[in-house]
C-alpha cells in the first residue's frame, strides 16, 4: 500500500483525523475551553498553565506550540479562547490559523463580558465546525504526506533490545519506501550516545548543532545545582533494569535506527516537508516531548515502551508498542502492539517491524488506537525559564 485515506486541507497537508480544536491561550480560559469541549462531541480541548507572565523565549515557544495544534493536519478547524489582553494574543493566533485555510474563530472572555457569554460563543462556533467537519470524506492520499512521531516512555532494558528495533524498522520503511518523514526527540536522552548520533547528520552544520544542543541541556541541568543522575534514569526506568542515563540513552537511540539525520529543530517547530529523519530538541519528559512533536505536525505517534505507559495525545493518534512480555498482561490498555515474541520467542525483529507497520496502516486509515478509544491524552508545553 502506498496510499491511505485521509482528509485534505487547503494548505496541502492531509490529515488522518478530522478534529475541531478548542485552544486556550492562558490558564484563565482553561475552564471555558473544557466546558465547551464537554458540551460539543467531537471537539478537543487544548489547555495549559502558560501564555502569560513569561519571558520572550517562552512566549515564542508557547505560541509556536499552540499554533502547531491549531494548524495540525489532523485538525479541521479551531476556536481560540483568550481571557483578556494576554501576551499570547488570541486574535493573532486565530488569524494565523485562518491563514492555512482552516475555519478559525477567536473568543475573548473580557470582550464577551464574562465566562457565560464566552462559553456560549465558543460552543456555537465549535458546534458549527464539528458539523462542517463531519461532511468531509476521506480521499486517497500518498503516504509521502505522512510524518511519524517517535517517543519512548517508561523504558526498561527491553526497550533498546526489542521494541525500539521494531520502531526503527517501521519509521525507515515510511521514509525509504514511501518518502515520508520521521521525528524523534528527547535531547537529554542522547547523553552518552551523542557523538555517534551526530555523525549521522547530513552535514557538518547539523552535526555541530546536535552536539551544541546536547551540551546546552547538560549546562541547563547542571545550572540547577543538581545532578541529572538524580532525575534520570527515572525510578520506573531503574525498576526495569536501567542503571545510568548513558544506558538509557544508548537504548533510546536504537528507536531512531541508523539512517541520516536531516536537521535538529526547535521545540514545537514545524517538522520540514522534505522526506527524511528529523530531531526535535525536547526534554525527556514524555508529556512535554510528545506535545512538542504534535505541534510539529506529526500525524501519529509511536510510543515505544518497556513497562507500559498512559502517554498519548489527543490530536496525534498514539500507538503503544512493547517488547516486554509482562507488559501486555500488566497494562493491556496501554499495549496496542506486543512484539515480545521477537525478544523471548521465535519471531524476528523484521516480524516485529511488520506488526507495527500493519497497525500503523490501520490507524492512519481511521482505526482508533486504544488511548483514543478511552479518551486518554496529555498536553504539556515545555517551558524554558521561570514565570515573571
Amino acid at each position, binding site marked *: 500500500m502506498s496510499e491511505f485515506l485521509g482528509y485534505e486541507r487547503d494548505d496541502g497537508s492531509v490529515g488522518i483525523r478530522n478534529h475541531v480544536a478548542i485552544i486556550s491561550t492562558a490558564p484563565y480560559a482553561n475552564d471555558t475551553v473544557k466546558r465547551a469541549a464537554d458540551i460539543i462531541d467531537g471537539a478537543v480541548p487544548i489547555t495549559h498553565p502558560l501564555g502569560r507572565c513569561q519571558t520572550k523565549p517562552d512566549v515564542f515557544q508557547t505560541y509556536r506550540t499552540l499554533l502547531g495544534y491549531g494548524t495540525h493536519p489532523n485538525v479541521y478547524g479551531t476556536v481560540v479562547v483568550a481571557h483578556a489582553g494576554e501576551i499570547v494574543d488570541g486574535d493573532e493566533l486565530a488569524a494565523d490559523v485562518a491563514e492555512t485555510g482552516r475555519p478559525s474563530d477567536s473568543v475573548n472572555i473580557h470582550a464577551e463580558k464574562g465566562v457565560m457569554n464566552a462559553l456560549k460563543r465558543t460552543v456555537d462556533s465549535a458546534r458549527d465546525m464539528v458539523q462542517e467537519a463531519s461532511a468531509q470524506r476521506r480521499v486517497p492520499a500518498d503516504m509521502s504526506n505522512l510524518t511519524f512521531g517517535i517517543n519512548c516512555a517508561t523504558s526498561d532494558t527491553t526497550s533498546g533490545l526489542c521494541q525500539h528495533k521494531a520502531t526503527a524498522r517501521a519509521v525507515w520503511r515510511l521514509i525509504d519506501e514511501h518518502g515520508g518523514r520521521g521525528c524523534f526527540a528527547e535531547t537529554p536522552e542522547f547523553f552518552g550516545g551523542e557523538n555517534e548520533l551526530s555523525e549521522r547528520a547530513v552535514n557538518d552544520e547539523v552535526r555541530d548543532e546536535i552536539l551544541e544542543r546536547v551540551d546546552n541541556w547538560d549546562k541547563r541541568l547542571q545550572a540547577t545545582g543538581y545532578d*541529572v543522575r538524580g532525575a534520570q534514569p527515572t525510578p520506573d526506568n531503574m525498576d526495569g533494569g536501567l*542503571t545510568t542515563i548513558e544506558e538509557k540513552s544508548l537504548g533510546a537511540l536504537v528507536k531512531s535506527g541508523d539512517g541520516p539525520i536531516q536537521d535538529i529543530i526547535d521545540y514545537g517547530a514545524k517538522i520540514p516537508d522534505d522526506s527524511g529523519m528529523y530531531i526535535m530538541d525536547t526534554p525527556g519528559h514524555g508529556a512535554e516531548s510528545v506535545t512538542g512533536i504534535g505541534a510539529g505536525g506529526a500525524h501519529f505517534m509511536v510510543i515505544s515502551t518497556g513497562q507500559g505507559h498512559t502517554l498519548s495525545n489527543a490530536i496525534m493518534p498514539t500507538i503503544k508498542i512493547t517488547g516486554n512480555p509482562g507488559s501486555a498482561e500488566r497494562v493491556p490498555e496501554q499495549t496496542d502492539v506486543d512484539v515480545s515474541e521477537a525478544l523471548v520467542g521465535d519471531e524476528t525483529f523484521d516480524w516485529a517491524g511488520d506488526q507495527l507497520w500493519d497497525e500503523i496502516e490501520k490507524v492512519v486509515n481511521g482505526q482508533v488506537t486504544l488511548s483514543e478509544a478511552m479518551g486518554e491524552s496529555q498536553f504539556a508545553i515545555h517551558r524554558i525559564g521561570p514565570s515573571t
Partner: protein
Amino acid sequence: MPDRYLQVVEPSDNVATALRELEAGETVTVAVGDEERTIEVQEDVIFGHKIAVEDIASGETITKYGKSIGNATEDIPAGTWVHVQNVESNYGRGDLAGDEQTATVSE
C-alpha cells in the same frame, strides 16, 4: 547451548541482560560474541536487570552496546547483579559542580 534469556549485545560488553528471573546459585551459560562462558549466579536477579559476565574491578568501565554505561563503584565478581548499587554514571555531575572533584568528569 548458551541461555537465550541472557543477552549480551556486543562482544566487548561485560554485562548480560536477564530476560528471565535468575536465582542465586544457578549456573548459566552466556554467549559473549562467539565465546560461551559458564557463570554462577551470585544473587537473585529480576527480569530486565543485568549481571556481570566477567570479574569487574572497582573503577572499571561497565560496557553495554559496546559502549560505557558508567563505572563500577566496587569490585563486581562475575555473576553479580549490576545496577545502581554498584555502578555510577559519568554524566551530569551537577552534584560535584563547584567542588574540586568536578575535574573527574569523564566522557
